């Protein structure tokens, strides 16, 4: 298919550019990572080791920039992102792999929940525009305008400190051994409830508002009137004609927000001491851990890109006008 091929080429080029920029930026940053790691260990590493560290981290100046670039790509394909300074000598890939599932699991699921509920509520409100249902909007908008960290702290104060219903931090009961069994999974859900709640609360109004407004716009389209005139049931008109078209812009924003799942949850992970990728990135930045930073950025960039690809193809499936066949 021509459409798929054209999009694929576009994404290959974008991915190449993203990786290349990811390679260049740390090399433009001021500061010497080796000096930083020696300073961090406060004399535990002798100064003579500096040169070996340089070679270990692939920082020796003997290689030209081009050779470094080629090597970077080679290592990337082997999944080798270098060694983390902070968690020395754990490879960056392992550190990232440890945090990533937690973030994707928690934030991903809450984003999907917020999107689903928000879109359904928006559909209903938009369908009954001008009734009491519209008064739901200011309430949800309130939660999204409250600064996220404040909302997080309030939720912790109420449900964890005062009521004691949920734990205030962590991602599972430390007494359990991570395994794919019910006690562990239920513990993960239990620990994840509060962070998920705050994410849903703070993002749902966007989905409601977006869907509601599109529903109002689409409901006045002629084809919705035609659907009524055809004598279709109200349900069929609402979902098959109005919502089916109103949801299209929602899909693009959903894909974008999926892309931000990986990078955009730093504050949540800090408030709830959640062991996700955002928290990892925060540690990397505060300890000048360049390889880890680079690894995190790479994962974030690629996930945004992947989300875009998914959105593109989902959109093509849902909207025949975007498929330019023939």
């Amino acid at each position: 298919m021509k459409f798929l091929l054209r999009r694929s080429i576009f994404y290959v080029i974008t991915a190449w550019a993203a990786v290349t920029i990811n390679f260049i930026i740390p090399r433009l940053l001021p500061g010497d990572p080796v000096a930083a790691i020696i300073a961090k260990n406060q004399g535990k590493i002798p100064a003579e080791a500096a040169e070996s560290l340089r070679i270990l981290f692939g920082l020796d100046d003997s290689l030209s920039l081009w050779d470094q670039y080629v090597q970077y790509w080679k290592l990337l394909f082997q999944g080798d992102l270098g060694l983390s300074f902070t968690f020395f000598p754990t490879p960056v890939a392992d550190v990232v792999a440890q945090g990533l599932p937690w973030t994707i699991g928690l934030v991903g699921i809450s984003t999907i929940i917020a999107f689903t509920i928000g879109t359904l509520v928006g559909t209903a409100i938009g369908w009954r525009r001008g009734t009491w249902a519209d008064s739901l909007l200011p309430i949800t908008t309130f939660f999204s305008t409250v600064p996220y960290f404040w909302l997080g702290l309030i939720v912790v104060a109420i449900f964890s400190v005062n009521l004691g219903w949920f734990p205030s931090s962590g991602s599972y009961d430390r007494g359990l051994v991570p395994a794919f069994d019910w006690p562990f999974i239920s513990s993960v859900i239990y620990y994840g409830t509060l962070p998920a709640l705050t994410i849903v609360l703070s993002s749902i109004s966007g989905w409601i508002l977006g869907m509601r407004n599109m529903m109002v716009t689409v409901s006045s389209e002629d084809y919705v009137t035609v659907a009524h005139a055809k004598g279709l049931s109200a349900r069929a008109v609402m979902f098959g004609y109005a919502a089916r078209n109103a949801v299209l812009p929602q899909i693009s924003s959903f894909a974008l927000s999926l892309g931000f799942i990986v990078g955009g949850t730093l504050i949540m992970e800090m408030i709830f001491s959640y062991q996700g990728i955002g928290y990892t990135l925060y540690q990397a930045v505060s300890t000048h851990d360049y390889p880890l930073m680079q690894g995190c950025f790479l994962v974030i960039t690629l996930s945004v890109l992947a989300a875009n690809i998914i959105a593109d193809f989902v959109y093509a499936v849902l909207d025949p006008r975007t498929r330019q066949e023939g």
Partner: protein
Amino acid sequence: MTSTDTAGAGAPAPAGALVADPVLDIRGLSVDYGFDANPTHVLRDVSLSLGRGEVLGLAGESGCGKSTLAYAATRLLPPPGLITGGEVWFTGRDGRREDVLAMTDARLRQSRWQDTAIVFQGAMNSLNPVFRVGRQIVDGIFAHRPKWSKAQATERAAELFEMVGIAPDRLRSYPHQLSGGMRQRVMIAMALALEPQVLIMDEPTTALDVVMQRQIVEQIAELRDRLGFSVIFITHDVSLLIEIADRIAIMYAGEIVEQGPAQELYRRPRHPYTKGLLSSFPPLRGPKTELAGIPGAPPDLSNPPAGCRFAARCPHALGRCQAVEPELGPTAVPGDATARRVACHLHDGAQPVPLELALTR
């Protein structure tokens, strides 16, 4: 079937009824826009009958309430439109009579598309862009014939496509893959899916070029002859209307100001507004005439003038036109068909009707 000839010379219709066998009888329909204390009266006490098998043309300037009438009569009026009074009697082939405005929602849904189907102005926007056109015809069929098999419904859709001159393999097309004329044909095919008795066409040809307009109009006339449905054809293009309509009703500022057999009304208008409207379009045949147009603009309906609403633009306005509202009644021209009605003080018999509004031949 009511045609121009029989209406002119035929049996006298009972008083008040212009049509012997009405399939749709709109009585005293009033529509307001706005829910607040001071709504705009867009339709005021409009009565109109559609005879069985008849093509009724509804003409007037933009914003005079033509489409509102169609939407209100089918209860498709979007908010803030509100039907404030009136009845819309539908008579089925079996003689059953029902007031559309009094139907329950379930009954209304059942009646729609089977009794009355509509073709809208924007062929562009009348089709759901994300579904194949075939599916959109089939879902309408299934809403009323739930026992039909999928193959049966698809076969019916293909049959309809052939009827309007589209290759049945186009059923698998999306709306954006079809031209404007084709889309309008798809809409017509869709509207005829359940063999409705009334087809309301709201400016079905406005977005199309002249050649396509003509083809569509001819097609509708041909289908009407073959299938025997009745049509309310709404347009502002009177010269197009006389090509297809048996009878024409002229609307101005939310009221019907004149109605009568198409050819008579076209050749011998009785209302000054009809006269002005007709002079605004070039005749399709005959000698060239100068296009006059009507000076001024329709009144603001949220603050309508007292008396006749056309008085301010009327070249023949009398003193009482500003004060007393004229009612739809017989014309004052001797020899006019009984089916002719006009709402104008010039025809109340108190003075001779101006010559240009009293042509007899």
